């Protein structure tokens, strides 16, 4: 009767506080247990379906053409590799000549430069310009001005 009615509310606050305490501090071990991990080994059939899916295969390029100058292959939006390499080599030789002409760093003159090949004379347009001689025939792609 009245004895039971008195005892019941005395126990209520304790289990509530226990629940709050247990939620407040989840231990490190609990958070590790929630991490994602594979449940089963992926079979080779599943692996093959993923690896050989058309979006993973290499796509065939349709933008390859033939360079009209040298005949090598080139991509449409890119300079021809062979022509670029040959121009690069010639530029390097011209720069070596300039280096010999100047002799040291910070000696670049304030006038323009003209490159002349074998058997070419400076015209009246090239009056005040610095002249760099190259000991070979003029390459067909280097237009004279």
């Amino acid at each position, binding site marked *: 009767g009245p004895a039971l009615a008195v005892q019941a509310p005395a126990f209520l606050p304790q289990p509530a506080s226990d629940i709050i305490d247990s939620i407040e501090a989840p231990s490190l071990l609990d958070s590790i247990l929630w991490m994602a991990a594979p449940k089963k080994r992926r079979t080779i059939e599943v692996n093959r379906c993923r*690896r050989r899916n058309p979006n*993973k*295969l*290499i796509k*065939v*390029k349709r933008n*390859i053409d033939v360079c009209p100058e040298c005949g090598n*292959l080139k*991509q449409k939006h890119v300079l021809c590799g062979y022509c670029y390499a040959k121009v690069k080599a010639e530029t390097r030789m011209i720069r070596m000549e300039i280096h010999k002409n100047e002799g040291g760093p910070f000696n670049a003159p304030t006038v323009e430069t003209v490159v002349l090949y074998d058997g070419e004379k400076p015209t009246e347009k090239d009056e005040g310009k610095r002249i760099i001689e190259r000991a070979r025939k003029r390459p067909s792609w280097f237009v004279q001005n």
Partner: protein
Amino acid sequence: LCCFLAGSSWVCGLLGWARPERWLASGSLFPLSCIHTSSSLQKFGKWEKKNRIVYPPQLPGEPRRPAEVYHCRREIKYSNDKMWYLAKLIKGMSIDEALAQLEFNDKKGAKVIKEVLLEAQEMAVRNHNVEFKSNLHIAESLTGRGRYVKRIRYHGKGMFGIMKITRCHYFVKLVEGPPPPPEPPRTGFDQAKEYVQQLRSRTLVNTL
């Protein structure tokens, strides 16, 4: 085969655990030394031997058998899986197309495969009686797993992993003639026709 093999690297693969040159003392005679050991050049695998088969002469009425060239490169330092994508790209193309695609591909294996194709083309023209070097197409292009080596990869905190240094082989078969037309993809209509055909060809078992 119990012939004593004297160590080229490809050969040591077969009996990696056994080192016959260490068993014999330095002064003793080499037994069975008269047998032609496989240390000259390298051991020929099955793909290299395919170039040696000779067909009997063809009868006058038969259609002309197209020329075939087999070529391969062994122990390329590249992954088998990654090389497979390049091999799949090239399958069934003509040789010019294949060389164009490989030239503008950025993968490491593309350079290797291009060299192999050029070598094979050269071999075909010189030794295998192929008239035009552009008239070849790639009938088969395969990759194989080479010999792997295990090494330790050091991580932080004293942890380590075992890494595999992978190598692969690449095999190619060039056949003379234009490339075969690609087969049309299977439509739903074809599948339905086949299904109906299957249903119609059913018979009653164990009856008259």
